[in-house]
């Protein structure tokens, strides 16, 4: 927490942020320069100024030139640390790469690439979204780093993480240099999957009963097979893996090739979000069992299919349902 916030200047800081973001067009790659980097003393820096005043008083009252010298050495160190802290951010190249989808209530990850300025090290860079946990990294031996920065995703739909804040207190903690970047990144947030009763199939061709029995057969566990590349991670038997027996995939008896429809209209009458969550849960379940399924929600109908691409399509529709875009 910066001292500006402690003294209740949070509003001022927000105004500064918004003004700073308006000054620069949104770009994928940004090189940090002096017109973007802000720098102010930290609480520790203010403490240091107090120390300098005390030392100056000592020097004046005891007329000790060596104490003057020490004071001035620390004053110039203080001034130098402005430049040092600034240099720790300046020249850094930040590229916003992509946002990763997640389910509501989780954290969405955003991939950001940092490239060090030529011939300079950057240490203890702190990156954070407003709603996310900060991440600290050094760019010393490694000149380029791709990092994944998490941002809380409370609701489904597009998640705009807001400006990316990059700050640093390095090297002496006396100053805080920071900047805000409008990355333009966004991530899709799927509805939170909520387990619910198995859906009634919406096929309408009288085959419903048999399908329901089969649907209940979803739970029949049939054994393990070895993991192969490309199999969804949801199917991995993590408990087996945790016992140290390698990666295995759960196999279900019911995973035959029957079509199932996840139909909005036939869903038990609950609220919109709960319906979406339920559909999402079953879509994931069915994908995991590699059983084709179709989805019908108002305005959208996806023909039964299985596989990762289908799942993504379904998830996208669910996420954006009723959101216009």
């Amino acid at each position, binding site marked *: 927490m910066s001292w500006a916030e402690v003294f209740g200047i949070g509003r001022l800081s927000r105004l500064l942020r918004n003004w700073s973001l308006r000054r620069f067009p949104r770009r994928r790659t940004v090189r940090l320069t002096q017109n973007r980097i802000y720098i102010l003393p930290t609480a520790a820096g203010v403490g240091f100024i107090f120390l300098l005043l005390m*030392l100056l008083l*000592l020097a004046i009252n*005891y007329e000790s*030139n060596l104490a003057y010298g020490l004071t001035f050495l620390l004053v110039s*160190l203080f001034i*130098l640390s402005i430049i040092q802290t600034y240099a720790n951010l300046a020249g850094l190249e930040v590229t916003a790469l992509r946002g990763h989808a997640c389910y509501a209530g989780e954290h969405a990850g955003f991939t950001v690439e940092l490239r060090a300025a030529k011939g300079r090290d950057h240490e203890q860079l702190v990156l954070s979204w407003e709603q996310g946990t900060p991440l600290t990294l050094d760019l010393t031996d490694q000149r380029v780093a791709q990092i994944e920065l998490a941002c809380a995703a409370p609701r489904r739909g597009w998640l705009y993480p807001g400006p990316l804040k990059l700050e640093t207190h390095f090297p*002496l903690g006396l100053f805080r240099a920071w900047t805000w970047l409008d990355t333009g990144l966004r991530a899709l947030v799927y509805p939170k999957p909520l387990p619910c009763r198995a859906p009634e199939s919406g096929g309408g061709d009288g085959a419903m009963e048999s399908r329901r029995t089969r649907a209940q057969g979803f739970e029949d566990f049939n054994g393990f097979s070895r993991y192969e590349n490309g199999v969804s991670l949801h199917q991995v038997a993590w408990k087996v893996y945790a016992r140290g027996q390698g990666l295995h995939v759960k196999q279900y008896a019911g995973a035959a090739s029957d079509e199932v429809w996840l139909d909005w209209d036939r869903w038990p009458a609950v609220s919109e979000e709960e319906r979406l969550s339920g559909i999402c849960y079953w879509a994931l379940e069915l994908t995991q069992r590699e059983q084709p399924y179709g989805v019908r929600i108002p305005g959208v109908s996806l023909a039964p299919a299985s596989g990762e691409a289908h799942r993504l399509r379904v998830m996208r529709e669910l996420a954006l349902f009723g959101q216009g875009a």
Partner: protein
Amino acid sequence: MRQISRAAVIWQLIAFAGVVIPHLAWLPFWLIGLCLATPAVRLMIHTGRWPLPHWSVKLLLILVVAAGLLLSFSRETGMDATVALLVAGLALKMVEIYHRRDALVLLYVALFVCATAFLYHQSIAMALYALLNVVLVVAALNSIYQDPLRTDLIRPLKRSLRLVSLSLPLMLVLFILFPRIGPLWSVSMNQQRALSGLSDTLAPGDISQLTKSAELAFRVRFDGEVPGPAQRYWRSLIYSEFDGRSWRVPGDYEHRYLGAETLAQIRRSLSYEVVYEPSNRNWLVALDQPLSAPQGMRFGPGQTLYSVRSVDRRLHYRLRSALEYRLQPILSERERSAYLQLPNEGNQRSREVAEQWWQEADQNPERFVAIVLRQFSRSFTYTLTPPPLGQEPIDRFLFDTQQGFCGHYAGALAFLLRSIGVPARVVGGYQGGEWNPYERYITVRQYEAHAWVEYWIENRGWVRIDPTAAVSPERIVETADRVFAGDPAFLADTPLARWRFGGSGWLVDLRRQIEALNFNWHRWVLNYQGQQMELLAGLMGQVSMLKMVFALLLPFASVMLVMAWMQLKGRRAKPKDPIDRALQRLISRLERLGIPRRTDETLQRYAIRVVTEYPELSAGMESLARQDEAVRYAGKSTQRRDLLAAINDCYRALRTVRRVDAEDRGK
């Protein structure tokens, strides 16, 4: 609340130790014990052998330390108590260094304690040590802000060295330009112990005590002409009261009417600068007769120079002194009676013989003095270890022992003069001084303390007469250390005195060179104040506000610019391996010639590409590529040497190629 890393804890310990060490000399024993114990406790915690202390333990510690401080320093309020309090606080904080904020408090207080060390020592060594301390503290500060996973202890030190060395130029600018103002409130240095030097009473044996000490008394640098050894009479005190045994400076009451005296008919005067060592007393020294008293000083009895405050730190002052003059040609009744004061009785034989000589001299003071001095030179000896005198000291000295040091002779002569009605006084001060050829100044030490006599003659005023000169003329012309070189009592308290003082030799030369360095340190660094204004005025002519602002800002801004440039230009990462370094040099040269190496290109492919452009290099590049392969896949040290040679061959070949190119273009 961030927890600090393990490396940072170690750094806090180092910084703490560095800062406390200069104070160990005077801190009470229990506090030194505390300073040793708490880092040890922290180390035990650090290594996981002990847990962090419970709050009750901490509270107990604080109470015990507070009680200790109250007991040790209850009667003092000066800097000692403050520093002790800070050191105790540091030591206690050491135990609970855990969070970033703890470390910050520790380091800031440590910096302040580091500065307080200057109140005790101001030597060059101390300044360098403090600089080292700053480096350590800054490293400690850096260590709490660096990646907590780094365990490298050297890294913060390197960073700190870089930061501190970059700060030095700006510090210098600030040091020179910052205006010095007087103290905002009066502070005492809290050093009540008496330092060696002259005292306000003069018993016959006192000055010979001083000859045991080679401590510095003061140093003088003359602007132009330097007076010869026989003229170097540094006056310090006037002893006007005699109680039958010892001489005493006038009390506070007499000070008022025995003040400044009239100085007339000045013919020869010199100006000079005095660097006076702290004495914790008020009196100072001046060569012969100073013309006026500088600021903060006044004239005491007999035109001696006094400081208004007791001299508790090294004092610098400039004076102008007269060597040929008339002092107080007219004596007031009060002065006359003060300088004729004698006890009513005692030393009867001396009084009688004085009367006898007074008649022999036809009541002429100068002739009388000549008779006395003749007596002295005939049968008296000058010695550092005179026999004790007991009661009636003047009688015993003149008629029995006839052995004495300058105090004996001066006291006896003044007594004789007073007894026949000639105003006289004993003057205490220093005589002589060692010439330092390296920095051209005079060093006066405690062993050069001296006493002589001034007596008053109608119309001529006070006249100086040095009875020691009659007994031991070489004492006046030579330096004291040469005169006493053979006497075992001389410098008895000073180790290595035989070699360091007296005579000559490389050790004496070395000592003088070190002293010259210290003298410059005292004059230019410790005494630097206000000169910058004179300097600026000299440089700019008329001082105006605008010019001042420019004079302050210009150096500041330029140093800042250089600093910023050095920070932001980055540094070319130089590979540590000599082969990589040589290769980088070669490739960057080739790059400038227009053949950049692509990032995905092997050295072999690159070599082929280079050769197509520069066929002259084919032999070198081929050998290079072959050696590189050999090193990469076989890796013997002899092959590494060959590879390095191959790279350097190519580089040299490339230079000749370029030269040929340039010549071709020239044609």
